[in-house]
């Protein structure tokens, strides 16, 4: 069965082709939504079969079907498939969220008219290449799909390209992630230079990896992680993600929350056998993750655009995953356990569900209210019962309240980071950042929920519950967000399952029963610290935004006021990039432009001018007088004769 996994991306791709080329009449319902749902559902069914196979113990790592794509000398570049536990988790995420988002779009995009065909075609292309990305078995193939998801992201952010802000946000997302992509490419090239192959099966072999010089390994892994920084919106390349909210909300839910931004985390997790060779890179990964988690969460505290809150929250949660991966590497190296790795992957899955849910809920709210600004909302809870309840489930999940999914994975992440502190003190600092983020996460999520659903309406609108086609995916995702954390307890435990994909790195595998895991989680005092902080955050949000009469202006004064201004300006990072682009890059461009215009073009134009002028002079020889030509022929013939008869014998040739 696994060797047919390559069919998974084919179904959405066929749907993409059909939607793109079929005549409009045959697209029928919603300009192609039917084809889109069909393609996504077919891929979902196949994915489920593959996941089932993986769960029953069979994987396909390096022995799958391959086809030769490119042969250069002795090196042949192949395309193949790589199915292991990590792939299975990604398949769960992409297939479930992808299908639900496409169904949801059926109602959400109803008002877009002709543009729906473009939307469905692009979204099917995205789903297809995302599947391709997660089943790739070498870095080059992965990189190709990596770029293609970036392309789809660009196209879909710029869906409303007539709006200048959407067009520029699309360009920004494309350019900023491209910085990371270049780093990824450089990392891949370094690996190729030293190993001579890009197949995972060769690279992940510990002996070949050890043949790479240590400093080059550090450089290569840091560069590969650089790709993840761009794609997963980690500090300092995170500012494109909030801007990416210019796209339709469904796109934000699918691409910029659940799947594409996870590609960076997936890449880091996939490169684990390489990262393990370079503990310095692991530390770098962890620090970037921790800083991102804290920084993004702090900006989310003051954002007033409902989608931007969720965008910063996404960045922050991606930071958690990266942090867990960095810390997890130390655990694999020194403690021989995959705790951090499994925590990151579990959080990846849980986050995909609850963040997709939150985005789709936000979409439902925006659909009803017609604005993104939370200051103009309020009191929607009574009118939009399903949306408010499902969003509450999502908020509780992300805030880390048991038994919702976020609690389990976030707790595992923090426990792994704390555990890694035994091997390097800096992880304690990162743990503090993580735990501070827990508080902030709970606060900003419930600030959002209360501002949207509680109290009285703050502007004039006639909200109503969204159609069933939209609430149905919400309910499914809410159910998943509530229970997906229990994956921790299925059969031998999620940790045992996911350790299968880094099996070569660990010396012994750990069987843990559900009671063992529960005992560890609830026997640890740190669990209660994060729980208390999360509850505190929710309470504070309740006091500030739900109970009337709280004077929020106290925060606008003094140091906290200044902090608030800094937060509202996104820590000036965005401004820094704008200034940087305007001053430095623009002036360099001006110089380059002048050089091109006057030096390069000058030389080229000069030659053209020279040719023209000399042609003007030389053409005077063509008089049109036949007798002159004949005279010249005779003179030439005479000269030739003189040359042949006298000069040549005289010279002795």
């Amino acid at each position, binding site marked *: 069965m696994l060797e047919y996994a390559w069919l998974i991306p084919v179904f959405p791709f066929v749907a993409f082709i059909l939607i793109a080329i079929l005549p409009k009449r045959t697209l029928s319902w919603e300009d192609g939504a039917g084809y889109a749902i069909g393609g996504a559902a077919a891929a979902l069914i196949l994915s489920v079969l593959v996941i089932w196979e993986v769960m029953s113990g069979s994987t396909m790592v390096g022995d799958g079907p391959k086809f030769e794509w490119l042969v250069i000398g002795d090196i042949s570049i192949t395309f193949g498939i790589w199915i292991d536990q990590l792939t299975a988790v990604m398949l769960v995420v992409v297939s479930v969220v992808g299908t639900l988002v496409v169904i949801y779009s059926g109602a959400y995009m109803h008002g877009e008219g002709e543009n729906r065909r473009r939307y469905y075609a692009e979204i099917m292309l995205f789903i297809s290449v995302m599947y391709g990305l997660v089943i790739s078995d070498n870095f080059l193939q992965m990189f190709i799909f990596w770029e293609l998801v970036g392309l789809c992201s660009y196209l879909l952010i710029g869906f409303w390209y007539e709006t200048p802000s959407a067009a520029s946000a699309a360009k920004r997302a494309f350019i900023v992630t491209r910085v990371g992509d270049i780093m990824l490419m450089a990392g891949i090239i370094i690996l190729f230079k030293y190993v001579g192959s890009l197949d995972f099966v060769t690279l992940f072999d510990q002996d070949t990896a050890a043949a790479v010089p240590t400093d080059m390994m550090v450089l290569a892994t840091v560069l590969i992680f650089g790709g993840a920084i761009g794609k997963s919106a980690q500090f300092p390349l995170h500012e494109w993600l909030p801007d990416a909210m210019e796209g339709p909300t469904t796109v934000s839910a699918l691409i910029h929350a659940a799947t594409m931004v996870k590609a960076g985390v997936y890449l880091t997790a996939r490169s684990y056998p390489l990262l393990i060779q370079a503990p310095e890179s692991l530390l770098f990964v962890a620090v970037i993750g921790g800083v991102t988690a804290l920084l993004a969460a702090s900006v989310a505290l003051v954002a007033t655009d409902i989608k931007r809150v969720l965008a910063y929250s996404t960045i922050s949660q991606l930071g958690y995953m990266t942090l867990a991966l960095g810390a997890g590497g130390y655990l694999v190296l020194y403690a021989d356990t995959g705790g951090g790795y499994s925590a990151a992957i579990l959080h990846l899955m849980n986050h995909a569900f609850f963040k997709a849910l939150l985005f789709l809920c936000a979409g439902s709210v925006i659909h009803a209210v017609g604005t993104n600004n939370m200051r103009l909302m309020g009191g929607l809870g009574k009118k939009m019962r399903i949306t408010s309840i499902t969003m509450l489930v999502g908020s509780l999940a992300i805030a880390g309240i048991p038994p919702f999914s976020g609690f389990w994975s976030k707790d595992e992440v923090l426990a792994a980071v704390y555990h890694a502190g035994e091997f390097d003190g800096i992880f304690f600092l990162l743990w503090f950042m993580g735990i501070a983020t827990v508080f902030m996460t709970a606060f900003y999520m419930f600030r959002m929920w209360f501002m949207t659903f509680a109290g009285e309406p703050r502007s004039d609108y006639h909200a109503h519950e969204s159609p069933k086609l939209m609430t149905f995916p919400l309910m499914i995702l809410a159910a998943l967000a509530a229970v997906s954390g229990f994956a921790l307890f299925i059969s031998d435990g999620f940790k045992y399952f996911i350790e299968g994909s880094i099996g070569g790195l660990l010396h012994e595998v750990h069987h843990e029963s559900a009671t063992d895991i529960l005992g560890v989680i609830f026997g640890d005092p740190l669990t209660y610290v994060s729980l208390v902080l999360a509850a505190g955050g929710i309470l504070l949000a309740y006091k500030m935004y739900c109970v009337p009469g709280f004077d929020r202006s106290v925060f606008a004064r003094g140091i906290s006021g200044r902090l608030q201004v800094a937060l509202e300006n996104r820590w000036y990072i965005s401004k820094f990039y704008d200034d940087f682009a305007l001053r430095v890059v623009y002036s360099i461009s001006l110089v380059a432009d002048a050089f091109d215009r006057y030096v390069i073009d000058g030389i080229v134009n000069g030659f053209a001018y020279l040719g023209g002028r000399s042609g003007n002079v030389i*053409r*005077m020889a*063509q*008089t*049109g*007088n*036949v*007798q002159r030509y*004949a*005279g010249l022929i*005779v003179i030439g013939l005479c000269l030739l004769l003189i040359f042949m008869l006298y000069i040549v014998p005289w010279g002795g040739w």
Partner: protein
Amino acid sequence: MIPIEYWLVFSSLLFCVGAYGVLTKRNAIVVLMCIEIMLNSANINLVMFSSYHNVLHGTADPSGQAFALFSIAIAAAEVAVGLAILLSVYRRYKTIEVDKINILRW
């Protein structure tokens, strides 16, 4: 037999007369006639070398004479084409002076 050098000098002179006419005469018909003279000087050469073949190599070789006949036939055809061209040139420009017909230039 007349020595071979005489023939060579004779045909060269004939050729030079023709070439001079081609280069200097303004009337296109005279130019055409001069071209004929040049052709015939070549024909004289062909016939002359053919008849000297026996003297120089001991065997007869009539191919030079055959070529001379070819050349005469081709010259006839050429004159027909040339005169036809001149006729149309005359119809178009009302002149056949070669230095007036110089539109094929810059």
